[in-house]
């Protein structure tokens, strides 16, 4: 949380860190970082009313960036917490990495970029980003994929659907490339 704030401050933005649904609805842009357990996070969002606020914010078409668990929560469900429901903004489910690789994936891995994605303007294909996760999102709609990464299998490591953006990696911990990606997001105009 603090890291995302630091990165945005470095880019000259004045982020407000909030858990208030009202503040989210008032925002121009929302960055939605998350770490921890899918089920617990989904529950926390529901209790605080942030789930509805996030969905309304997205429905208004304003730029939204989910990071890590904040990406996974946009989907319908996760193998991590089978009884919990995600926000369901995007179709698909979150799945666990196969047992053939070390889990969690921790470290720098490459982004295989799809053409013409706004979040990656000026970012070279195969750039490295920093990942920390045990689960990955499998979108139902292939057209939302903005980047893929190889780790035991090829999975969706970033996505875009209209004004909804999300990355499984941590742009705030991905050095200058990460800052560039965040800059692309904060400078986005409709």
């Amino acid at each position, binding site marked *: 949380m*603090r890291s995302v704030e*630091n990165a945005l401050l*470095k880019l000259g933005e004045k982020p407000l860190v909030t858990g208030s649904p009202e503040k989210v609805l008032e925002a121009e842009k929302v960055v939605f970082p998350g*770490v921890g357990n899918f089920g617990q996070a989904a529950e926390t969002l529901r209790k605080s009313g942030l789930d509805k606020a996030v969905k309304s914010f997205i429905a208004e078409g304003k730029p939204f960036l989910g990071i890590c668990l904040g990406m996974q929560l946009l989907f319908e469900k996760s193998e991590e917490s089978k009884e919990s429901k995600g926000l369901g903004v995007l179709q698909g489910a979150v799945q666990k990495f196969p047992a053939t690789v*070390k889990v969690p994936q*921790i*470290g*720098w891995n490459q982004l295989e970029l799809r053409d013409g994605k706004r979040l990656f303007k000026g970012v070279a294909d195969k750039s490295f980003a920093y990942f920390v996760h045990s689960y990955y999102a499998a979108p139902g709609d292939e057209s939302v994929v903005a980047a893929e990464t190889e*780790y035991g299998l090829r999975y969706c490591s970033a996505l875009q659907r209209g004004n909804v953006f999300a990355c499984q990696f941590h742009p705030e911990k*991905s050095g200058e490339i990460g800052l560039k990606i965040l800059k692309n997001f904060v400078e986005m105009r409709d």
Partner: protein
Amino acid sequence: MLAKRIIPCLDCDLSVPNGRVVKGTKFKQIRYAGVPWELAKQYYEQGADEICFLDITASADKRETMARVVEETCREVFVPVTVGGGIKSVEDANKVFKVGADKVSINTAAIKQPKLVSELSRRFGSQAVVVAIDARRKGSFWECSIYGGRKFTGIDALQWAKKAESLGAGEILLTSMDKDGTKEGFDLELTRAVSEAVNIPVIASGGAGSLESIAAALSAGKADAALAASIFHFGEYTPNEVKEFLAKKQIKVRL
């Protein structure tokens, strides 16, 4: 494909205002290397994949100084930051997470109260918990030490690494005390044994003297990352220079 990581380690003496980075050999004989956050920023700009701070003073009244070091660092450094040394409780860990650290590294406290590993893991996620193991060869096994190498425990490093994983550690930071600070090269046998025993990343530490030794730890030693201090502090190599060498050896790195 996941890249192998190069992690500069900054051993911090926090007994002076703002702290200072020091480097000893075999846990003794100290030399000074600079202001913690200035060095951290320099290494970040030179391609460090992560930064690790170890508080070698590790007394409770120095906690505020470490918090300041982390806070200053995280304003300018956008790679993961790990803090170790003297973290004994969830509160201690929370203090450094609050100012921007991504991971804590625990050794003595983990051996003395293994429950702390699971508590930290549950509270902050396994990715935030690094269990540090300082070991030296003793006959047919490697023995874990605590208190910065001052006390030996009789605990088998391989067994402890597996237990730490089952308790919820996200990574193992493995230091060979026979080699630490000597620049003689990592203990490859130990590194490989631990890497094969667990299914979480292993960071090899202690004895990064030459580029060849780092390459060996990451290939023959099967480590996922290498942590080093002396070779960076005294200007022998930058992190990027190390990685360029590794790339030539067909080792995957972020350049």
